[in-house]
């Protein structure tokens, strides 16, 4: 579900709308209402960017009211709408100290995929934010197999814990991945699809394609799009013709000049 930042989601209750459109968005007491709304979003699968950012702003103004759990849930929720920039926007509103020690680990040679963040800091919240930021990086880089691997890692179960509150997290991520696939591809080998969606067998892929991807079918060992509309081939290379139309007014200077010249020379 796209979250074009300005639009109002249908799921937003009226009291939240009031908070966001009046000065009560600065009232520290509203944090309780907005926090509960985050819990609702996590449970029901809805998503409201503006409300979440408003809550983060309240935390900015009243640091003593900040609840770690809520912050982490907001971040986890914004992962589900990737590739929208929501996660980044949330990061901007967090206290600067949380990210201060995050280092985007240098990737191994010949690989664009970064390594997980280095040693832990003393602050539990910082560590969690670092982990979520790393997950976001993987999603942004479309490094989906790595994403699933880290998420289900036995070595560091923290990752799974961080997103546990968000119901339907995995499916939401899969939908995001589906969007990326339909955007950029017309066919994809089932083998790759398995690792991208974190499915274990071909039946799961078939079911997913059937339910979530209208216009796509399984053909042999690939999933294929049957929709001709988006086909990009060499034929779709366009050369916009040079605009041959020039408005007459643009000639006015030249014509006036020529006219003056004529007058002078007679």
């Amino acid at each position: 579900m796209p979250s074009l930042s300005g639009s109002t989601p249908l799921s937003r209750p009226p009291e939240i709308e009031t908070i966001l459109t009046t000065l009560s968005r600065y009232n520290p007491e509203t944090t309780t209402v907005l926090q509960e709304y985050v819990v609702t979003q996590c449970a029901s699968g809805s998503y409201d960017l503006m409300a979440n950012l408003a809550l983060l702003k309240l935390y900015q103004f009243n640091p003593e009211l900040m609840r770690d759990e809520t912050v982490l849930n907001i971040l986890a929720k914004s992962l589900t709408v990737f590739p929208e920039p929501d996660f980044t926007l949330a990061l901007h509103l967090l206290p600067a100290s949380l990210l201060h020690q995050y280092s985007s680990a240098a990737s191994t040679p010949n690989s664009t995929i970064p390594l997980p963040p280095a040693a832990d800091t003393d602050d539990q919240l910082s560590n969690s934010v670092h982990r979520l930021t790393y997950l976001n990086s993987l999603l942004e880089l479309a490094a989906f197999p790595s994403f699933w691997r880290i998420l289900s890692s036995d070595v560091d179960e923290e990752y799974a814990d961080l997103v546990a509150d968000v119901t339907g997290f995995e499916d939401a991520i899969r939908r995001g991945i589906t969007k990326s696939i339909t955007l950029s591809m017309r066919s994809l080998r089932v083998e790759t699809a398995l690792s991208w969606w974190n499915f274990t067998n071909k039946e799961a892929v078939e079911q997913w394609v059937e339910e979530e991807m209208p216009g796509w079918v399984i053909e042999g060992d690939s999933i294929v799009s049957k929709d001709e509309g988006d086909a990009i081939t060499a034929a779709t290379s366009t050369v916009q013709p040079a605009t041959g139309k020039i408005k007459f007014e643009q000639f006015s200077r030249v014509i006036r000049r020529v006219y003056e010249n004529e007058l002078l020379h007679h």
Partner: protein
Amino acid sequence: MDTEQVAYDYDDFIQKTGDYDFEDDEPLATDLIDHEGFDEEQLLQQQQLFQRQIQIQQQQAAAQLPDAVRNFILYFHHCMKENNVYDLHGCYENSFNRLTEKFYKNTPWPDPHGVVAPLVNNDQPFVTLYTELYYRHLYAKLQPNLEDRFASYDNYCIWFNYIFDSSSPPELELPTNWAWDIIDEFIYQFNSFALYRSRTVRKSHNDEEIQQLREHPQTWSTYTVLNVLYSFIQKSRMNEQLEAIKEGRDPDEVAGEDGSRPLYKTFGYFSIIGLLRVHTLLGDFTLALKTMEGIDLSKKSKYARVAGAQFTTYYYVGFCYMMMRRYADAIKAFSHILLYISRTKGFHNRSAQYDSVTKRSEQMYALLAICVALCPTRLDDSIHTTLREKNGEQLARMQRGGEESLPVFEELFSFSCPKFMSHGPPDYDNPANNVDPLQHHLKVFMMDVKRTMLTPTLRSYLKLYSTMNIEKLATFLEMDPEELRSGLVVFKQKSRQVRWTEGSLLDGEVVNVSDLDISLEGDLINISEAKIGRKFGDWFLRNTAKYYAVQDTILNKNPEKQEEKEHKDKRRERREKNAEKKGNK
């Protein structure tokens, strides 16, 4: 200092903004004399002595006042009393700057309370306005210390209280650019104070100052600033008025009694832009753009004539778009205002704000370079040329991608971003814990940039082919094919952005902004490129006009040049003759 009017937590804030009724609050005057522990006689004597001393001081100061300045102050006061907006504008725009250049280039103007107040019989509103100018000059040309900062804050409180006095709203009408400058300066001083405070806590060992800062958390607090801006907007019902204008109705219908006054209208409108700025400084880019939703940038309102406001608006709007990854919109905003600046260059040379305009435009060119590197777009020719002049080398490095481009991004970003600040007071006890907000925002921004490092290399390869096998491309790039597949997905995603078409600033639709489009079929990459034919018509016309101008110069349209030319010709003839003679010998 007693600053009860000021809102320093939410309760105060909502109370002040809610009913903007400042009647009940005490004025901000500081007592000069401590009344405790004195008996009547002594007190009287003390007072008299003190008054006499002040009088002597004033006389001395007044005697040193140059005549031109004294006359200016009196005339200025006169204009204000007469509510003569036109002359007031002249005073403000021209005379003040001229006198500053002449007498007060590096020193402060005469002290508001000691010298100017007695000249105008302590007319409080005028003194407050004058004090505002006094401090603005001080901040601009000299280094304000902590005391100055506290004092200028108090002055603003007095001024805003005066305006918000609903029992007798001032009949005053200020020229629009002065009103804008007041709001602009107010936020600038707020920003400057926050930076000064964090610098003091982090670096200086001036314990006394730190103590003072600790004791006055409400001075220059974010709540106060927001309070002022929101109050203006509410009092003038600016958002309702803007909505009415959009729907074609008469704004005065919804304006209410206060909203129809030109003073409130002007301040209300500019406060919206002020909020845009404050929210951006605090890192809330979406809210910043949302606050502007009433304003239609494509319409030319009468406020659009205030150049300073236009520059600020477009700079911050462009910056917010950039931080939201809407690079196409950011480029449009920057190009628009840069074109405007280059076309009105003649005007600004004479204005006192020439330096700040130049700095702003340099910053916008830097941001434009960043956006173009992240989202290659065709720019308007003149902008493109200037951009290449100013940031050509940096642009080239950014466009090449890879590790070497990252420091350039960081450098340009740090140079041109707003002076980010954190909301509340710093951690006085553990100064090391205070992280510079600029570093924070820079870091988050760079995380985005790092993810697009592969794109330029990809582009260069993809442009060469119409189809390509993933394995083959992976060999070229020395990458793992599966990772390349992910890279291509990212490439495709980056070419899709939200672009504004109509409605409020946050609206938009997802469009393809790249001239290169790809589609993967299994292991095969299909590439399509959209080439735009060159528009030669416009180019030819422009050059024809230029040619005529050159022709004019050569022919006798320009008599001085003609003389010079004749002179040169004669000299050349003589030289040639001499050379001939020598040759013949």
